[in-house]
């Protein structure tokens, strides 16, 4: 019981520190020109550099979803265009936003927290503070804005590639005709699902960038602690993404 109490108390305290850090982050940048330059850099580092992994994973998962859907449809009364429809629903609703976010939490989140954590333990953050720079704002705000503004692009790429993956199965195997797949993609299409996915992804991007920054920024110690912080960041942001997914789905759908 006492253990549970300290556990809850510790995490509440941590959450409080997280909110306080965000307070430091969301202030006016010392110099806008420097902010924009850093923003562009982060878009490249966090966004562009993630395109390849999003591209590859989406195409394969799209293909796998199509294959599995086909295998599960055993009744001859279900038309084969259903495969296209179900593949589309899975990709639009869950894969391109939530699963993609979990993957990015691993890739982008760990890189953010290890970068900032290393700067903390090598006193680079102290050096910024001594100069009079708001280090939290300087380091973290460009990362948050970059990931939040670029994630819709990643989600869109993921959707297109996922759907294309299913199409390739139809095209290159004889499991189902690709024309039926395309017909399936178009039937009962609800545009809102795309928006739903993109809206969710904005929240996820915020979680990934802020949680990873928090764990990096508050590291104490040396290289080992930096490694641990980045693992913690990935775990905590993944769990938060899943909880948020339930919440947002309840609200939006």
């Amino acid at each position, binding site marked *: 019981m006492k253990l549970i109490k300290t556990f809850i108390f510790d995490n509440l305290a941590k959450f409080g520190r997280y909110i306080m850090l965000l307070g430091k982050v969301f202030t006016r940048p010392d110099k806008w020109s420097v902010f924009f330059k850093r923003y562009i850099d982060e878009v490249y580092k966090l966004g562009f550099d993630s395109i390849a992994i999003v591209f590859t994973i989406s195409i394969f998962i799209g293909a796998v979803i199509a294959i599995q859907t086909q295998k599960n449809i055993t009744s001859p009364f279900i038309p084969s265009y259903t495969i296209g429809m179900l593949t589309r629903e899975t990709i639009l609703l869950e894969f391109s936003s939530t699963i993609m976010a979990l993957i990015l939490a691993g890739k982008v989140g760990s890189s953010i927290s290890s970068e900032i954590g290393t700067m903390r333990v090598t*006193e*680079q953050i*102290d*050096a910024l503070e*001594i*100069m*009079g720079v708001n280090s939290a704002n300087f380091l973290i705000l460009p990362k948050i804005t970059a990931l939040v503004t670029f994630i819709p692009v990643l989600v869109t790429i993921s959707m297109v590639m996922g759907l294309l993956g299913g199409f390739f199965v139809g095209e290159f195997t004889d499991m189902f005709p690709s024309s039926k797949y395309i017909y399936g993609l178009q039937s009962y299409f609800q545009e809102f699902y795309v928006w739903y996915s993109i809206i969710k992804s904005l929240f996820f991007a915020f979680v990934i960038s802020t949680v990873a920054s928090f764990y990096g920024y508050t590291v104490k110690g040396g290289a080992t602690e930096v490694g641990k912080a980045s693992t913690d960041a990935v775990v905590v942001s993944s769990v938060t993404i899943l909880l948020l997914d339930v919440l947002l789905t309840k609200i939006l759908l």
Partner: protein
Amino acid sequence: MIEAKNIIKSFEGKVILHNISAKFYAGKTNLIIGQSGSGKTVLMKSLVGLLRPDSGEILYDGRDFLKYNSSDIKDLRTEIGMLFQGSALFDSMTVLENVMFPLLMFTKQSYAERKKRAEFCLERVNLKGADKLLPAELSGGMQKRAAIARAIALNPKYLFCDEPNSGIDPKTSLVIDKLIHDITHEYNITTIINTHDMNSVMGIGENIIFLNRGHLSWEGTKEDIFSSTDEAFNEFVFASDIMKEVKDYVNRGR
């Protein structure tokens, strides 16, 4: 001049600094010496505001910055340069960009002006030609010099150096000490240096305070060292045989 009055600092109930009062003078190399763990870094970080003391006053030429609001602190910070124990150069930037960085953030200078000033600082620390290298490509001594160049870029009135000689060979240490000493006198900077290196103490100890487990137990100049009667201080200073011999030699001459 920086004056610390009755500084107390504790972590989680454990007192690290016990009521420290000291004066650090302009145009002098002021040393804070003591064993590892005696509280030198905590004192320095308290002086610059990276840590907040539990109580006490810190006066920068009469200005009590613990009473400042955050924008006043920001202004004061542009008068402060600091050299960190591990250099703390920004590892994603070249040496030149590191030195130009404070100018970029806190002046309205054009790129050409910033570059000129940065190159001047790099030349002052004898690092011309290394400007396009990344910090990781420099030796320890070169990193320290680059960090000094960055610390003096904005013409600071106050310069803080935390163990400038840690991880550096004795010969390079002398170069760094001389550099800090010369810059201090050249620009009349109030310089505070943490060290446990007796070479530095004997070389540039113009005003020394000695910390013993968080207590200030001795102060003086390098000339006063041999007449000290403080037990802990003597134990620290004359730990090595060579220092004992020097003491004997000096005392025989008296």
